[in-house]
């Protein structure tokens, strides 16, 4: 076991420790510390990824002294490492480009608390990615929920408060379902670690005992995670929360945290229950229908928005729909496409939230579309970044969105029957709808502003923020051009994922 083998564990510990230490630091120090931590996690994750690419299979990492089935362990494979790298990269970018906006919402004295929440959220995300244990899953889901609640509610605003109340209620409800599901699963199998759980589940399926409760378990856990990841029709809390949160928080919530829940769900499907059982329980079909409906209705809702942030928030609902559609297709190819979409959407959505905020900023802090006219000229980099991100959303070639669409379509076409028709039509329709609202917005920000709108002088976007946005724009393009190796990692990672 080399040093690199320990990196995932290190990065989790690092985040949590940083969270603890940050509580005593001043705003400035804690900010730098957080950035450094996230950066370090990024580097560590990338190194882990490199390691796992050299290894044949995933390796378990035992935390504490007890081996499975008693002790707590994490599992490090290619897929996990890739996700960790991707998410920490997105987080790093979001923080660099958007930290200064959070400062305007949080008082100087309390800023370190905000940083704690960021650290905790990242820690939770990493744990959820790596963990091999449903108990840990539960604990860190709760931590993540609280942390993200705090990330949002730093904004002292009626809308935000209402939104976060909704958020809390829905998430607590989801947690309840999840916990209930975990408890029942434990009841029928006697395990909480994933490896023995799977054996037990297979036994249940083979013997036929407790099949009913197993179905309930699957339903409960799926529903719990679906609520938390804002799957249609459980998305009600999401748009307001994303829209009224500070931009960094919105980027983190919508880009990363919601994906972590979905990753847990995939893990649950593959590593706990087994995909065949899931398909035979027709859960995938439910997810598929919800995903397709989410793609379409989310987009339609987005079109009807007048506030740009709510529009982007609703587009998240639609994009989450893509992921669930991929899962719902029920084949390995579909899940691969969904996983890739998780990465792409994480990158693109955080870009969108951040660049949108820059555009709003140069438009006198007004969010309606007609005030945004000409914003693309007032802040050129943000305009370009927004345009590119919008293109990825539409699925223009050379952006990640295109590859997502392509892979989803190919995995759908391989199924045949009504699934094929639904996938293809949903993709086509969704592309059209996406182009309606995103490119409409792009056109808006390059329109000539009305004569009577006066835009106050605003401080220029610092160069480092612009550079960061551009770098992440390159990331989106890279996802569109160099998708092959990433997809290869996802594919091989998923193969060892059971």
């Amino acid at each position: 076991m080399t040093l690199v083998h320990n990196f995932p564990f290190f990065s989790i510990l690092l985040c949590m420790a940083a969270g603890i230490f940050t509580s005593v630091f001043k705003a400035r120090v804690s900010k730098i510390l957080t950035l450094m931590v996230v950066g370090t996690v990024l580097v560590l994750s990338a190194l882990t990824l490199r390691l796992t690419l050299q290894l044949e299979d995933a390796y378990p990492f035992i935390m504490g002294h007890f081996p499975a089935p008693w002790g707590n362990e994490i599992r490090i494979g290619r897929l996990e490492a890739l996700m960790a790298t991707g998410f920490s990269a997105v987080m790093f970018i979001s923080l660099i480009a958007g930290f200064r906006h959070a400062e305007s919402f949080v008082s100087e004295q309390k800023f370190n608390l905000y940083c704690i929440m960021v650290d905790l959220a990242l820690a939770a995300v990493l744990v959820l990615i790596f963990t091999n244990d449903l108990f840990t899953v539960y604990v860190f889901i709760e931590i993540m929920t609280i942390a993200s609640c705090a990330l949002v509610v730093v904004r002292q605003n009626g809308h935000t408060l209402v939104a976060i109340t909704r958020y809390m209620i829905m998430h607590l409800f989801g947690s309840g379902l999840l916990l209930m599901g975990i408890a029942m699963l434990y009841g029928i199998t006697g395990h909480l670690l994933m490896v023995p759980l799977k054996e037990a589940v297979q036994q249940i399926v083979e013997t036929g005992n407790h099949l009913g409760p197993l179905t309930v378990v699957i339903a409960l856990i799926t529903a719990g995670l679906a609520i938390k990841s804002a799957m249609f029709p459980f998305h009600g809390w999401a748009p307001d929360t994303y829209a009224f949160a500070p931009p960094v928080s919105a980027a983190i919530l919508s880009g990363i945290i919601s994906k972590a829940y979905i990753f847990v769900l995939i893990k649950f499907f593959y590593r706990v229950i087994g995909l065949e059982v899931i398909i035979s329980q027709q859960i995938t079909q439910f997810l598929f229908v919800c995903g397709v409906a989410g793609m379409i209705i989310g987009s339609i809702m987005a079109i009807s928005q007048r506030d740009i942030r709510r529009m982007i928030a609703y587009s998240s609902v639609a994009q989450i729909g893509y992921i669930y559609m991929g899962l719902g297709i029920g084949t390995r190819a579909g899940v691969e496409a969904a996983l890739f979409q998780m990465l792409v959407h994480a990158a693109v959505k955080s870009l969108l939230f951040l660049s949108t905020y820059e555009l709003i900023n140069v438009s006198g802090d007004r969010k309606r579309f007609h005030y945004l006219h000409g914003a693309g000229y007032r802040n050129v980099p943000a305009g370009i970044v927004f345009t590119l991100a919008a293109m990825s959303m539409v699925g223009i070639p050379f952006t990640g969105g295109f590859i997502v669409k392509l892979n989803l379509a190919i995995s759908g076409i391989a199924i045949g029957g009504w699934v094929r028709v639904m996938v293809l039509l949903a993709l086509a329709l969704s592309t059209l709808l996406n182009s309606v609202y995103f490119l409409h917005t792009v056109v808006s920000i390059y329109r000539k502003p009305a004569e009577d709108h006066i835009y106050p002088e605003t401080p220029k976007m610092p160069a480092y923020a612009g550079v960061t946005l551009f770098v992440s724009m390159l990331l989106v393009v890279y996802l569109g051009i160099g998708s092959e190796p990433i997809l290869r990692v996802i594919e091989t990672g998923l193969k060892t994922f059971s």
Partner: protein
Amino acid sequence: MILALAVALPIVAGALLPAFRFEKARRDLYMMTSAVLASTLTFYALIADQPAINIISLNHFLDITLKLDDLGKVFAGIIALLWPVSLLYATDYMKGHGKQTSFFSFFLMSYGVTLGIAMSGNLLTLYVFYEIMSLSTLPLVMHGGSAKSIKAGLKYLYYSLGGSAFAFIGLVYLVYYGGTTEFVPGGLFQGVSLTHSAQLRLGYVLCFLGFSVKAAVFPVHGWLPEAAVAPTPVTALLHAVAVVKSGVFAILRVTYFSFGVTMLRDSYAQYVPLALSAFTIVYGCTMALKEKHLKRRLAYSTISNLSYIIFGAMLLTPHGLAAGLMHLVFHALMKITLFLITGVLNERAHIYDVGEMRGIGRQLPLLAALFTLGSLAMTGLPPLIGFISKWYLAGAAAQVGGTLPILGIVALLISALLTGIYLMVPAVTMYTRPSKLAAWQPVETNFSVLLAGLSALILALSLYSAPLLNFLNNTARGAV
């Protein structure tokens, strides 16, 4: 390499244009140089065959490849010929318009993108350039900046992207069943005993519908007349030649080089496009007849004429394709001439409606004569080029026989008749006494020379088109 250069040069030159902050004269020189250079490269590639060049691989089955085969040469040739001409026209036309830099920047970029479409070596490349074209030409449509042009632009955008969303489905079908998107003469599925032909046909029809948005086939044509609000060089070049013919070109590509005629022949995958295009031929003309606004009338005429090409191609015979290609070339020449003349009338005489054209014949005898010539050619008066393509179209349809082709001939004739009316009536009114004296501004000699040149080309081709027709016939034979 030449191909990549020809595509990249205008794109890069266009993208860099705002960075230079030229004054007008130097800007024009810069643009013309790059456009002419790109055209020269293209012409060179037309003559000396170039090897295919792989730009980038998206993954193991999707490459961005540039290749110039015979069909591509046809389209690339027109583009390379007409773009510098239109650019030259635009430099004069846009005098006094705002935001010229952004206009010309996108205008140049679109050149490269269109060349890219012509030189695509596979469907993915074509699709990529096709999408980029939707976006790069959007600012040109919306250049006016008025609410109307924004609305037109958005409509154009939604139609285009919606269309490519469906074309994308075709792409996916090809990737899944064919394993590649390569353009192969005769299609990917020749000589293979097909068990999936039913699915493939569905994929083809969806793909056809997708690409037919740009080709303005009936149910999805709505954007084109609206887009006539764009400045005339855009309407003339993009909405009579580059953009719309890209749609047609894409249809030709998927029909002959991807899905292949053998699979489509005598199935609904042939009949649906045939019926749609035959209907569009008549529909476009009828709408043109109703329309009083000259540019919109010409736009509707374009709708009708594009379907001539599709109709010919969808006969799925070498003759049909050859006739379609002839119309592709000839219509480009005729329509651009008419549009450019209209542009001069708009800008220099503020004449927008058909009814206002009285008296032009006296004020601008040359322009009026050229307009009449263009109209005659469009109407299909032998021996002008419009007749040649119609003749072969009808011949090809008669040769195929069957209900739809014969109906198509009737559609062609109705269209010829309506064209005679909606173009010849304005042409005639030009020579009548003006009801009011328009406020004329002098017309630059540049315009006259350009337009006369184009018309001379039309005449020359009318009298001697044998080499071109031979080439097109060979192209068509090669494709089937």
